[in-house]
């Protein structure tokens, strides 16, 4: 018993002691690139299935993306460049894309890569028996064929502008290994053979996925010999592993970024922080089919009453940006000419009164005896919950009675979103790289389970979205989507709240990380990263 008490007391005392383990290595010392070494990172979830078209979870695509190539990929400025294709041409009527594939390349098992592999992959992704949620984009291809071993041709009945993007997100699978397999439950999904920088070395279920360099890699050998991804569901545990030096890299949250790191200089000697625009935005959306949200004045009044800056500071500690169009700030498709609606209580009151609302004895706006009250729905997501609370507070101030309801995801989607039984939501969408927003905003996409669940319906927007899909000239396309963004912002069917930054902490022993993060993100030049020998972890000693 005494021992236990002693241990308890001892550990509590030690816990309060802030002295770090002595690590006097100067990681800032410059070093020349050398290959070898292992990078260890952490993920919160385990990949399901390394055939990305079947898997659908982000952990799977992150790992599969290191093993497989697509025909195209994004360059550092988010333009397209060849991946398995060397070059590509689009016919004048925009209906035919011809890909010239790289020649003399091999799969990791030394079999040659040919056009047949691409054709096979296309057949699989469009096959009704394949359990993929992503087939619809590829079903638009009316005919796909191989002119010879290294020319792949995709033809469309109508021009389809997002086509190039779809070819940049389809991992090409090896036909020779999968032609006799059922792609839905093949063992290949746990033990894939690809063509990219890395190949699967070992997968310990529930614990870690180990990758090693693929000697046949299409783009040559990366400098890092091995990549180990540990599965650690808890972010605080990941963070402790990072500061103990057991993992080299992780995504961190705003508190860690702007509170923990600045206050602890010894961490900054070991770890570099990177900030880049994230991949999604959070919005406040209305059910437009319900009163009073069909009234533009009410939507605008609410928009004026919400202080977006306060939300960014409160929820993200300032680590985010306001947006006015559903595209990444700073990228080509963003409409930079839109004037922001900023926090203005008097304007908000003015608009409410214009719609016939008056303050009642309880300081709540009402019209025809009905107070202006509604419920904000959101799922169990800390940032969204905090956002909802800040919105509630501001709307309360102005005289709108708001309650908040937080619900588990599956119930949220099925009981409320699919049935349309909600008034307002705090939710997020991704900031897509292609400007097409058809599935979110077109009036035809309002059925149960479809994504225009807020019920937005504007014939002009429908027309723009249809035209935008057919226009492959970037300048003309930009005009279309600029107008689209402007209409959406003017009508405020959703209130854009913020787009948060992606925050990454990378140990300083990893060299070659770009100081200024390119638009494509900090991981874009991962194959150039290296760990100098003197900084490498002695794997046996751990």
């Amino acid at each position, binding site marked *: *018993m005494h021992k*236990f*008490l002693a241990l308890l007391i001892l*550990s509590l005392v*030690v*816990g309060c*002691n*802030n*002295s770090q*383990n002595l690590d006097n290595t100067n990681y800032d010392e410059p070093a020349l690139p050398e290959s070898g070494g292992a990078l*260890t990172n952490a993920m919160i979830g*385990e990949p*399901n*299935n390394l055939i990305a078209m*079947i*898997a*659908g*979870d982000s952990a799977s695509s992150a790992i599969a993306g290191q093993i497989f190539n697509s025909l195209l990929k994004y360059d550092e400025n988010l333009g397209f460049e060849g991946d398995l294709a060397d070059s590509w041409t689009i016919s004048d009527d925009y209906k035919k894309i011809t890909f010239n594939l790289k020649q003399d390349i091999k799969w990791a098992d030394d079999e040659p890569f040919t056009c047949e592999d691409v054709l096979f992959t296309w057949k699989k992704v469009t096959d*009704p028996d394949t*359990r*993929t*949620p*992503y*087939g*619809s984009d590829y079903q638009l291809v009316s005919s796909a064929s191989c002119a010879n071993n290294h020319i792949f041709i995709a033809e469309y009945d109508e021009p389809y502008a997002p086509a190039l993007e779809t070819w940049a997100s389809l991992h090409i699978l090896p036909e020779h290994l999968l032609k006799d397999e059922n792609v839905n*439950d093949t*063992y290949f999904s*746990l033990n894939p053979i690809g063509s990219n920088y890395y190949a699967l070395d070992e997968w310990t*279920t*529930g*614990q*870690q996925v180990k990758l090693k360099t693929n000697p046949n890699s299409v783009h040559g050998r990366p400098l890092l010999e091995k990549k*180990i991804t540990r*599965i*650690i569901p*808890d972010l*605080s*545990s990941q963070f*402790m*592993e990072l*500061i*103990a030096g*057991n993992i080299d890299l992780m995504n961190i949250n705003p508190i860690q970024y702007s509170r923990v790191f600045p206050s602890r200089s010894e961490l900054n000697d070991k770890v570099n922080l990177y900030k880049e625009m994230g991949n999604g935005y959070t919005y406040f959306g209305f059910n437009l089919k319900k009163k009073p949200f069909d009234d533009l004045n009410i939507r605008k009044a609410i928009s004026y009453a919400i202080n977006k800056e306060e939300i960014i500071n409160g929820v993200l500690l300032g680590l985010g940006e306001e947006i006015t169009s559903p595209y990444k700030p700073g990228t080509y498709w963003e409409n930079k000419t839109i004037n922001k609606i900023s926090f203005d209580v008097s304007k908000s009151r003015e608009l409410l009164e214009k719609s016939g609302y008056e303050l009642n004895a309880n300081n709540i706006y009402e019209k025809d005896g009905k107070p202006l009250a509604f419920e904000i729905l959101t799922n169990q997501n800390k940032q969204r919950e905090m956002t909802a609370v800040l919105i509630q507070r501001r709307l309360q101030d102005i005289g709108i009675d708001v309650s908040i309801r937080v619900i*588990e995801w*599956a*119930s949220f*989607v*099925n*009981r409320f979103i699919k049935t349309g039984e909600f008034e307002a939501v705090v939710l997020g969408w*991704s900031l*897509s790289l292609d400007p097409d927003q058809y*599935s*979110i905003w077109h009036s035809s996409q309002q059925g*149960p*389970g479809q*994504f225009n669940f807020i019920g937005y319906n504007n014939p002009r927007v429908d027309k723009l979205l249809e035209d935008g899909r057919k226009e492959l000239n970037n300048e003309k396309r930009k005009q279309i989507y600029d107008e689209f963004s402007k209409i959406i912002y003017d009508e405020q069917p959703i209130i854009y709240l913020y787009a948060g930054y992606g925050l990454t902490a990378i140990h300083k022993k990893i060299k070659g990380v770009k100081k200024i993060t390119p638009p494509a993100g900090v991981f874009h030049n991962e194959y150039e990263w290296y760990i100098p020998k003197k900084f490498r972890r002695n*794997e*046996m*000693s*751990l």
Partner: protein
Amino acid sequence: MLNYLIKRILWMIPMLIGISLISFFIMHLAPGDITSNESAFNPKASEESRQKLRELYNLDKPIIVQYGLWLKRIVQLDFGSSFASHQRPVLWEKKDENGNIKPGLIQKALPITLLINLLTILLIFSISILLGTIAAIKKNKIPDRVITLFVFVGFAIPGFWLALILMYSLGVVNQVLPISGLHSIGYEQMSKLGQILDLLKHLALPVFISCLSGLAGISLYVRNGMIEILNQDFIKTARAKGLYEKKVIFVHTLKNALLPLITILGLSIPGLIGGSVIAESIFAIPGMGKLFYDAVLMRDFPVVMGILTIGSILTLLGNLIADLAYAWADPRIRRGLAK
């Protein structure tokens, strides 16, 4: 005795059907199914493809039909495959025609959970019996007070908080123990002994944390049981006839005080396969708790039902074993059964 046993075992069959029926319906009453999670909000994924998936898994059929299909499989001891896209078998590994093995979900998660829980129960019982005995002998004196305080503090401390503090102090500041996971990097190259040591090091914190909250209940059981028996006449007799105090305490008193623990031990058998979601997440241990929790959130019905079925079988067996063990240990009950 044999009749009693057969009756008990036969009774388990309708019980199991009842349990599975209720859990199946409750699970399906929750809104949503597997398709509402995997890519539910990806604008690139279409509703038609989700509908296709629903049909494939018979999720579009009435619940009672789905239950019938499930029951038909389960009586052949086929727990099916997960709905998640890895399609791994729920219970045990399956070999495909090329000889590749897909490991089973429960098969992978169960051993580690069992190991942790067995170690925990072993520690809880041995420490509690020790603490309870000391507390009973030194009733209302300082050692008793200290022990009571300690076990209650241990019971009241939030496990996740203490876990993080210990991880920080023993894993980061003083790198004595690993922070999370089950194996160190380079585990494969270690010797057999090194591997066992490595595993034990990784399990030290999780086992300690889950022990701490269990001490209070058991040690108080032992303490109060001991005190009650120490006041009985036969102990007085034992002391009066001049037995050593050691013998009085450990043979006459402790043996009788431990009887109720048999029931508790029996009832903790089903708990052996359950893990704590919070502890498993913090320590990154791929055990049963996280498997079950994730399956519920994903509405992965085959996995949920698989774990519930095994859990209910173990509960019923645990009850039976507890009763039998009690009869074995306590002659009064044994004679009652024989009648």
